């Protein structure tokens, strides 16, 4: 079935409140949000944030996330190292959660956003639902990657038992948080309406 889109009607819909305005209006009169026409210019923002997030994701995995100081000595763990340790200790559940939240989800987010951004060029009017679902999943799940940052924060704040055990956050925490934030921004900048139509026809009526 074909529907009339606001763009086709020469209107611009506000992504915030849904009100339509004539094409070219800059701001939504009701909610004050900036009105973006459905074109590919927003994609640049998506890529920019995405790249930044990716750049910060690298030190997040290479530098230590947690520094544990016990009676027996110091230990530094990266995200992956921590997962491996947890598995070695037998806490599979926690290891799975950390692995999911800190590795699977961010990487899949990168991939998903990239895929969405790349695939948006094609006109898919019919089978776009999966993409939309993908987008929704990405947007929903994105913030949950922050779990690991909070876990680090809680462990560092709580396990301060003098010389017996104390945990301190490592630099990976900051860069991981930054990476998550940037990918969130990247996902937010992605205009899902682009899934439903290709880049703006620069020509045409």
């Amino acid at each position, binding site marked *: 079935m074909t529907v009339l889109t606001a763009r086709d009607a020469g209107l611009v819909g506000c992504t915030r409140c849904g009100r339509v305005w004539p094409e070219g209006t800059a701001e939504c009169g009701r909610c004050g949000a900036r009105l973006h026409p459905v074109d590919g210019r927003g994609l640049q923002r998506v890529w920019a944030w995405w790249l930044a997030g990716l750049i910060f994701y690298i030190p997040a995995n290479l530098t230590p996330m947690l520094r544990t100081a016990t*009676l027996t000595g110091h230990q530094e763990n990266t995200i992956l190292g921590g997962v491996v340790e947890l598995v070695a200790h037998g806490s599979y559940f926690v290891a799975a959660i950390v692995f999911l939240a800190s590795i699977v989800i961010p990487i899949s987010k990168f991939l998903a956003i990239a895929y969405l951004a790349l695939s948006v060029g094609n006109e898919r009017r019919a089978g776009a639902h999966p993409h939309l679902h993908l987008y929704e999943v990405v947007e929903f799940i994105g913030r949950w990657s922050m779990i690991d940052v909070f876990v680090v924060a809680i462990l560092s704040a709580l396990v301060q038992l*003098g*010389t*017996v055990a104390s945990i301190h956050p490592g630099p990976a925490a900051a860069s991981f948080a930054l990476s998550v934030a940037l990918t969130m921004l990247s996902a937010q900048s992605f205009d899902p309406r682009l899934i439903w139509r290709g880049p703006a026809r620069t020509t045409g009526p």
Partner: protein
Amino acid sequence: MTDTPEQNAPAELVTSPAPNPIWTRLSVIWLVPLLALAITLGVAWKSYADRGVLIEIDFADATGLHPGETPLKFREVEVGKVETVGFSPDLKSVRVKIRVDKDVAHFIDSEARFWLVRPQVSAQGISRLDTVLSGTFVEGYWDAEPKGEAKLFNGLDKPPITPDPTKGTRVELRAEDAGGLVEGAPVLFRGVTVGRIQNLRLNASDSGVIVDAFIDAPHDKRLTTATRFWDTSGVSVSLGPSGVSLDVRSLASLVQGGIEFDTFATGGSFIQNGFPFRLYPTVEAARGSIFGNDIAEPARYTLLFDDAVQGIERGTKVQFRGVEAGEVSDISIKVETDAQGNRFAQQQIVIALSPERLGLARGSDAQSVTDFLEGEVATGLRARVAGVGILGTTLIIELTDVPDVPNATMNLTNQPYPTIPTTRPKDNDLATSAQGVFKRIDALPIEELMNSAIRALDGVAAVAESEETRAVPGELAGLLEQLRTLTEELNKGGAAEKTLAAIDGVTEAASSVLVEFDGLNETLDSLDKAAQAAAEIPMADIGAKVDGILGDIRAMLGSEGADRLPKALSATLEQSAALLEELRAGGAAEKLNATLVAAQDAASAIGDASDRLPALTAKLESLVTTAEKLVASYGERSAFNAEVLDTMREMRRATAAFGSLARMIERNPRAFILGR
């Protein structure tokens, strides 16, 4: 436009829909935030109200104290937390504010004590190493009866030795110097640790030290006013009638010092916290102190001696019938004028007697002691100087029954103290025996014997030369001839001279021996007389008398004590040497040094004593040799000879052993202490 007739017509009411009453307008939903608010405020209020009381404790420094973390523990249960760490107004100490749980806060009274629990390494051991991991914490002690509010306390730097003062008694010990005492050293009773000493400090006038001893319950029940405390740290070496003795309580007390106590006398009353005791340096001093815990003042008496008595000093013991009953407290000279107007000096000795030791009831006053003594004096009690000990060189004043004394009474009006009649000093046993021997020699009726011997010989000669004898048959003549020959031989052999010479030698030896002993002028006189009278001696009678002499000598030598004396000495010496070797290897150097000094003193005392020993034994030996020669000159084969010789040999063995001991000590007094 019409004119509105406003002035006179009533105005229109302004209508508007009436608002519903507020309670219908408010939806139930508002309960939710109200509930949330109520719960929040309730929890906040409860945690504020349960917060506990803030107390302040001043410590010297705040090592290991972290605000918000360091706990306050009572009996190892956390009852509070350090909140802030600041300074006292004069900046001299750190003021720590601790918030104490409410349920224990009201027990904290002015008697509560607080201290820091940190790892401690000391002579008493290593403790609380667990605080290295868990961190320093503040510990407090208080009891269940709050006595007075207090919010500001002075914290101690280390745990008090006795955190719980109810479970024991604290006493104060006073001594002249700290000796081997160390803070925290144990207090022993019969070798069992029953308490600790703490708080070693100088007394107010810096003339001695005071230390607190805390005796745990239930042993503190043994403390009475008659209890004596003494210092058992280190090693004590003593030389006494039974030999050299070495006393080490335990290796622990060797290293860290210790105090022991015991109650030697009955009748003491219970004591309170803080009762002062005197700390004696050795157990002997503690035992021997007569007056340490007497209630009553000792009774004092004056003794007047005509002869100067050397060697009596203040503190010299006074014995009553063999039991130590007091000591000499003063010595002076009293100048008297006698009936002829001549002035003479008397030695005036004041003695102090303990009524208890005399056998009177505890707490008897001086009058009852005087009454008692008067009765004794009437039955012959006198005071005199006596010598005790191996060589009789330790002097005491003796109050004892003396036989055959002229009647005397106490002079009760003498100032400042009543007198007890005195008598001549008793002579030494050895001297008495020797004197007795020579007295017997003196008592020999030698002159009569010699006279009758001369007469007999004259008679024989007359008979032999008379006309009648010629008429006697030749056998009789021959018999008489034999008799004469015998007499001539004897005369020729110079037996008399020999005897004289022997007795001279004996006299010399004996006189040099006996010059050690006091008052032996009579003995020497006797010897002189004996030597003179020995010019002509009838042998058989002398032989009989000498038997008696031998019996005496043997009795003297055969007494058990004298026999065992050298053996006991050498055995003890060996033991001491081994023990000291052990100690030295064990490395208790410090204590041993002090001990060595003490032992050195003992050794030099021994040395002094033993200086005389070689000379003495040499003289004894020469005496024996001379006596032997005397006996040997009477012929080989008689039983009398053999017996005498045996006895002489025994005597010589004894003196030889004695001599070797003396020589060894003289050679190297240190050797017997340190081992070879």
